[in-house]
């Protein structure tokens, strides 16, 4: 109606809103509370829930209150606060890890003829590690925050383990790159470092799955047994594709071909396994079927399948190979983004949390009890896999 009614409309209002959202006049009161150090630029932005406006009757909030109760449909767990660089990192880190492993295999078993492949892998691993760190720092905001990760080592935290793995792997790879071709002790150190990095490459490709699964995000937690295998096979396939797309000789190709193929086959199989794991509870699987993550997930499926098909079709035309690898790369990236967004969506959906747990996907999945915290029996419509 007018400028002085309604909320937050006058310039005076906006000025007031620009205050720090506390009621302490710093000239009169001491700002010493625990939360006083919280920086506030925009008080309005604090709450996702605030944006939500319930238009149904409060008593009927959620159309199926009786069958599927929730608190106004608000999320039961918080959704991940990460940004795009994290799913990108899931891809890059995987490729780097897998490449390092292949590099070590080539160095160890390939003899001098495959040294070029080893070197190439080392480069991919090193650059991948650097890029990974860059992506993580981008998410954290400031480089020193990454260093903070290395303050302690916490075995219960996949992120802690992962940070150490990434840091070590990056360090070792760099060392390997700088020293590996020298003679004498320096070369030995370099080669040792490369080997170390390669050993770390395996957890590097796999820990990211633990990072996701070790969370309360329903779809991630629900796939906690299959996701590592998917990530690692997908990393293998992705590294294979990347190395294949880079210029290489026939000798390398002879190694890369079976490597790629196995990776792609494993990836298709584990993709299905992940999907099956999630599908145990319809609400958990929902984001893999609907919306942006659903579309990405389907893209990934189609691209992987097509990539594999092209790979196994007879004939060795270069275009076919390139197409297969591009499709596979797209599939890998799409799957990472799909899972990332599916995680966000499933966290937002309280029913994914509630129904998952009611159907035995909560603590019961590992601890075997048969009643929920309210004393009501848990339903186990799905076989409990132990």
């Amino acid at each position, binding site marked *: 109606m007018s400028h002085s*009614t309604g909320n937050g409309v006058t310039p005076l209002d906006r000025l007031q809103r620009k205050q720090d959202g506390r009621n302490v006049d710093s000239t009169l009161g001491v700002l010493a509370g625990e939360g006083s150090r919280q920086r506030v630029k925009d008080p309005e932005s604090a709450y996702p829930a605030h944006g939500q406006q319930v238009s149904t009757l*409060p008593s009927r909030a959620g159309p199926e209150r009786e069958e599927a109760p929730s608190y106004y449909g608000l999320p039961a767990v918080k959704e991940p606060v990460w940004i795009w660089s994290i799913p990108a990192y899931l891809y890059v880190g995987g490729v780097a890890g897998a490449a390092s492993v292949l590099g070590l295999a080539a160095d160890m078993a390939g003899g001098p003829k495959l040294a070029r492949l080893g070197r190439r892998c080392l480069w991919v691993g090193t650059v991948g590690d650097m890029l990974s760190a860059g992506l993580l720092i981008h998410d954290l905001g400031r480089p020193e925050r990454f260093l903070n990760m290395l303050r302690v080592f916490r075995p219960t935290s996949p992120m802690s383990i992962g940070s150490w793995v990434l840091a070590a792997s990056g360090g070792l790879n760099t060392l390997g790159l700088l020293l590996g071709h020298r003679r004498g002790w320096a070369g030995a150190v370099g080669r040792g470092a490369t080997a170390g990095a390669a050993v770390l490459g395996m957890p590097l490709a796999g820990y990211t799955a633990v990072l996701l699964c070790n969370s309360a995000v329903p779809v991630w937690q629900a796939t906690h047994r299959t996701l590592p295998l998917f990530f690692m096979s997908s990393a293998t396939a992705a590294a294979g594709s990347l190395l294949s797309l880079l210029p290489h000789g026939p000798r390398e190709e002879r190694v890369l071909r079976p490597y790629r193929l196995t990776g792609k086959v494993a990836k298709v199989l584990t993709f299905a396994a992940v999907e099956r794991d999630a599908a145990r509870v319809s609400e958990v699987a929902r984001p893999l079927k609907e919306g942006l993550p659903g579309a990405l997930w389907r893209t990934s499926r189609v691209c992987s399948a097509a990539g594999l098909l092209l790979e196994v079709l007879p004939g060795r035309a270069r275009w076919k190979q390139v197409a297969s690898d591009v499709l596979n790369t797209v599939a890998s990236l799409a799957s990472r983004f799909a899972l990332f967004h599916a995680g966000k969506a499933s966290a937002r959906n309280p029913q994914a949390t509630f129904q998952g747990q009611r159907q035995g996907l909560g603590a019961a999945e590992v601890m075997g009890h048969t009643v929920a915290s309210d004393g009501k029996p848990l339903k186990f419509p799905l076989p409990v896999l132990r």
Partner: protein
Amino acid sequence: MPGLGISLGRGGATTFQQDLKNADCIVIQGSNMAECHPVGFQWVMEARERGATLIHVDPRFTRTSAMANLHVPIRAGTDIAFLGGLIHFLLEHERYFKDYVLHYTNAANIIREGFQDTEDLDGFFSGYLPDEGKYDIATWQYEGVSGTVPAGGHKQLYAEPGAGKGGEEEGTTARFEAHKDPTLQHPRCVFQLLKRHFQRYTPAIVSQVCGVPEEQFLKVAEALCANSGRERTTAFCYSVGWTQHSVGVQYIRTASILQLLLGNIGRPGGGILALRGHASIQGSSDIPTLYNLLPGYMPMPHARQGYDLDDYLKDHAASTGWWSNLPKYAVSLLKAWFGDAATKENHYLFGHLPRLTGNHSHMQTVADMADGRVKGYFVMGENPAVGSMNGALQRKGLRQLDWLVVRDLTLIETAEFWRHAPEIDRGDVRTEDIQTEVFFFPAAAHTEKEGTFTNTQRLLQWRDRAVDPPGDARSELHFIYHLGRRLKALYASSRERKDQPLHDLTWDYPTRGKHEEPSAEAVLQEINGYTIADRHVVSGFSDLKDDGSTACGCWIYSGCYADGVNQTARRKPAREQSWVAPEWGWAWPANRRLLYNRASADPEGRPWSERKKYVWWDAEQRRWTGEDVPDFIADRPPDYRPPEDARGVDALGGTDPFLMQVDGKAWLFAPSGVVDGPLPTHYEPEESPVRNALYGQQCNPARLEWRRRDNPLHRAWADPRYPFVLTTYRLTEHHTAGGMSRWLSWLSELQPEQFCEVSPELAAERGLTNGGWATVRTARGDMECRVLVTERLRPLKLNGKWVHQIGLPYHWGVTGRVRASGANDLIPFVADPNVEIQESKAFTGDIVAGRQATGERAAAGAPERALPPGVPELRRDSPSVGDVAHAVYQEKWEQEP
């Protein structure tokens, strides 16, 4: 609080909140205690934990209802019908507490021959003066008493027609005893009148008027009866859900009658707890900010009464009962104010006191302001532009002033009315046309100054200063003291008679610090009272004298500084003393926590039951004793019967627990003191969706109503333009007009926007969506708000007709951190005739979906919406006082002898 005062003798809660835990049943009606008194509500929760039944009667299902065993939705404005129904039930089924009623109430008194009831006169009592909209109360008196039987609790009435002196010539208790029928059979005895008066209030009528189904009503009735009597007690809690009606005082009267019939007054776990509002609102009627009272509930002299102290005392001092002490209290007050200048010869300067010339209540004053009859206005700790009725009329009043002083913590709407108001935004009023000079003084908050609060249970609690006020902020004490000092200086050389009171006023409080902050303790000592000769604090009001040898600022507070100790500052934790906790703070009168507690013992002075013992007669010590300070003459035995010629306090017998009353009895029937009837009667609110189902008379015939263009009223009932019942109330998250909450983000975020509560049925009917916008309208103005659709509100069925109620919290205004145009812009000036309280709990209005407010205000010149063709205007009844322009009213008084 005349509702309690007239019935029982004192205008304060009869009990204290901690005592609620002893109740076997608690009825909360007319209050949303959990939301508005959350801290006191812990004692209700405690009672519930101990097995008490908790009943909440409220139009809405609130946070209080959520805790109740039984929630009864009721149509706003119909509680007299509901409570009257309960009274009918008790009498009909003989479920009242016979011994209690017979001995402690005026049930047996016989009323004068000429008395006619609403039963006889279709909604009027005898004595109605249609031209004045008032009652002549002559026929309401006790038989055998000439003149008026003076009421104990509220004495302003004396200046009104029909009251005045009298009944005092041969004033002994004997005159009451002679005209009683202890068998309660006399057709004109109070008991029989009561029975007859409430005979129509059957469950069927309750259901038809209140919309409460009969079985629900009977559930309440049964719970009450099952939890009253010798072994058990029921407590009532009310607040402004009962008072803010044009029959507000009568609501409380009905509850008092009910509780007396059940024998629940003066007993542990019983009583009527008036839950009061602001931190010291009880204090502000004890030492009043009310225009018609002097401290300690002494009446303000009226211009009609002449200037003589003796006249005043003769008028107001009862010949029997506690008020026979009035001369001591009045003289001590004058001594406190005028010191040595006040002598017996000059009638202790009684002539210096201002005189009433009529109604000077808030609404009347605002109407006078709007008419340009008031030049200046002080607003201290109030925000009438938001908190008072018809906001636009309030602001119109402010615009006509020459000057306005606002003392507040923040720049509230009342200080900003000249630039922030709906009518200014709309362009109907232009800032540059407003002449009023506004002075804003920042006020010190309660943490920044010392003093006492008197809380809801008459408990004075001292509060220390935690920090000094910032900047220019000063305490009220500072402001008033220095204003007085400067005025005295300014007029020091004046010889004019009218300035003499300023010269004579004692104004000598010690001060401290560079800002010369007066000592609050010195003020408290003066309130407590002292002997003139040696300036020694007195130990209580029994020490006060009528010979000018004592001074006392407020006799009921006398004792708060006994022994030279600030009794109000006592803070002995409850766990270190008895559950009554007499050493926490100090309660008036005489540190009594439960009033009329003599009634907790039977006529012989023994507890009614072991379970409910509280105060009893100790035959060995020959004293009253018990958990609390006995509210009785400490050594008066239960079998004492006053001699025929006894006067004063001596005229109170050993079975007269209500010692403020002339007859020592609680008043089921009020021969005086209540201007709109000796017995409560159901009238519809000024604006109602239905006709009065009980009587031909629609509304309270004595109500105050301001019929002015800037205060348009809806049709008396069933106005097709305004079909819904609106009611207003508070939320826990905000405080009243918002000055202390809308500026705080931590509170504002909890309830950020003005909203209305509607039932799903009404939402469907009007296309309202939860969380969406709606516009609420009345003839006074309109308001946009958010919609909360909730099953906590349900339409009620009245005699086959569905009635929708809309709930509106009233905390928002146009400045502050969260804003809205404010619910009080919707409400008219209409008031209860006893205390001039507004009717904000029940009126009518309309609601439509969307943001459709025009910002038009009747008081800013908006035209009235016409009734649809063919719908006739309905006349309510003859005009009432508020209707008459103030000047005319004043003139009328001046003409009278």
